[in-house]
């Protein structure tokens, strides 16, 4: 009961000034953050940004060179992977090829000494949860990519981990299946109520699935927040540019456009084409490129000073698309500008 009370109050995972170096490379560089109990937490960043290393540090496959990691308040220094209350879904699934699906799912229970009848019952129940009831007798090689993905999930979840670690689990799937699995994963997380830590380089995935997102760059965390916070109020130019598309406006251009030399980010969908009224900032430019995406059309508009703004014009209202070479008036509200106090070269 004491342990349970501790669990309720303490964060699921705590990083305190954690560093992990590989030779000269600072894969994780003085990182501190907390993952709350029960949340869907995404670690988002380009490859080599340190997000996967952070996940491996939680799993115990890597040891920090400095700092400390705790899971539900318990320090993890020196604790081997097989004694940590976490389980991992690997990017390549890492299903045991020589075992049946059922034996794969029951593996964690088997090595912990759970009686055979009990572990088969629990493994079968978990296969039902991931909608693979009746597939227990097959070999992993006989399953599709999406089915293997689910077996990997069941194999991890059957151990009832305190934290589930997912390393780009949808990376190997095609787009349609990926979107479907995103929905299923989110629903599964709500059902089991376990903390999910999800590593991805896909900002769309991170925004759509998670309660909070940590944006990684060069071994450091640039920002942690809800998807809305990270998208609407990026604290650095990197976050603005990596999470969604953004026009990064430097202080010089800002001074010309708004009269104030303060750098800001501007989302392409917040720029109005031929604004009817009420725009706080108005500029003019020439359409130099146009890419049609179905729901919206993205325009490159070159301003008279030579700078290019990307503009998303929604196609919902219909009407003729602006043509390349056409002069356009653009406008946006003061609220659309996301201030970047550290400039745009961070």
């Amino acid at each position, binding site marked *: 009961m004491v342990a349970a009370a501790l669990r309720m109050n303490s964060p699921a995972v705590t990083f305190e000034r954690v560093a992990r170096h590989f030779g000269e490379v600072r894969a994780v560089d003085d990182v501190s953050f907390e993952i709350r109990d029960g949340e869907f937490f995404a670690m988002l960043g380009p490859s080599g940004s340190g997000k996967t290393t952070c996940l491996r540090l939680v799993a115990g*496959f890597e040891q920090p060179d400095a700092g400390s990691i705790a899971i539900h308040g318990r320090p993890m220094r020196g604790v081997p992977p*097989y004694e940590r209350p976490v*389980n991992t879904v*690997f990017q*390549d699934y890492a299903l045991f090829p*020589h075992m049946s699906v059922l034996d794969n799912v029951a*593996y964690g229970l088997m*090595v912990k000494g759970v009686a055979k009848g009990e572990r088969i019952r629990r493994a079968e129940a978990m296969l039902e949860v991931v909608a693979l009831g009746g597939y227990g007798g097959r070999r992993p*090689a006989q399953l599709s990519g999406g089915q*293997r993905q689910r077996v990997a999930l069941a194999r991890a979840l059957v151990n009832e981990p305190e934290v589930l670690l997912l390393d780009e689990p949808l990376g190997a799937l095609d787009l349609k299946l990926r979107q479907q699995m995103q929905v299923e994963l989110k629903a599964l997380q709500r059902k089991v109520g376990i903390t999910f830590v999800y590593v991805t380089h896909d900002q769309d995935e991170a925004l759509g699935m998670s309660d909070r997102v940590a944006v990684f760059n060069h071994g450091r965390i640039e920002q942690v927040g809800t998807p809305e916070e990270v998208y609407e109020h990026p604290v650095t130019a990197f976050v603005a540019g990596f999470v969604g598309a953004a026009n990064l406006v430097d202080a010089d251009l800002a001074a010309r456009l708004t009269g104030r030399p303060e750098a800001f980010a501007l989302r392409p969908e917040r720029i109005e084409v031929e604004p009817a009224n009420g725009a706080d900032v108005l500029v003019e430019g020439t359409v130099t490129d146009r890419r049609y995406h179905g729901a919206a059309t993205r325009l490159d508009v070159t301003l008279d000073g030579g700078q290019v703004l990307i503009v998303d014009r929604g196609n919902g209202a219909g009407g003729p698309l602006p043509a390349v070479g056409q002069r356009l008036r653009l406008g946006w509200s003061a609220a659309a500008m996301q201030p970047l106090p550290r400039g745009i070269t961070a």
Partner: protein
Amino acid sequence: MRSERAGLGLKLAAGLGLAFLHVPMLFILLYAFTTEDKSYQFPPPGLTLQWFAVAWGRQDIWNALWLSVRVAAVATALALVLGTLAAAALWRARFFGRDSITLLLVLPIALPGIVTGIALRSTFGLLEIPFSFWTIIVGHATFCVVVVYNNVIARFRRTSSSLIEASMDLGADGFQTFRYVVLPNIATALLAGGMLAFALSFDEVIVTTFTAGQQTTLPIWMLSELVRPRQRPVTNVVAVFVIAVTLVPILCAYWLTRGTESVAGAGK
């Protein structure tokens, strides 16, 4: 380009090459049945099964066979353990001198047997180690370890390293991971490597000559028998037996490791 089919000349050359390799074997087989025991006369004056009975009754053959079997079995067992350990150590570890160690490990199979043999003989002499069953084993282990190592490391390279991490992640300690994940994945490689090692040891002559002292393994017995012009077909009977004993495991090893990529690969 011309057609993909080989021309007549090439087919003929290939046929002759194969015949050159294997027709002498047929003569070994044929002379196991000849009625004439002094010289290899062609064609044999008559055919008989009596040499099989003679061979069966000779205690020196049984002694040599028994020694060869024990040597091959122990050398193979030793090679399985050491070869697997070496492969496991050199698979994922990155350390200074790793490539040199890899080279040193596989060198014995590339070195002429006579060099290995002389080197071992002088080492045993310097250290005043008397020739024994175990000196033969050491000689044979030099190349048996390589065969096992090569098979196991090839399998390791095709095995996703995340399988081991997955096992540890699911709560298995090092021993359980080896028992339930590593061993089943390399089992056929071990079997194939072990069979090849057994076959190599079973018909080894050169290294054995330098490390056996007065002991006689089956191939050594055959070599010494050739210079004696008495009951020559008995040697052929034994030769046929050796061919059978070494061919069967090599064929099995071939069948076992054929098309195992999908078994050993990651679950991708």
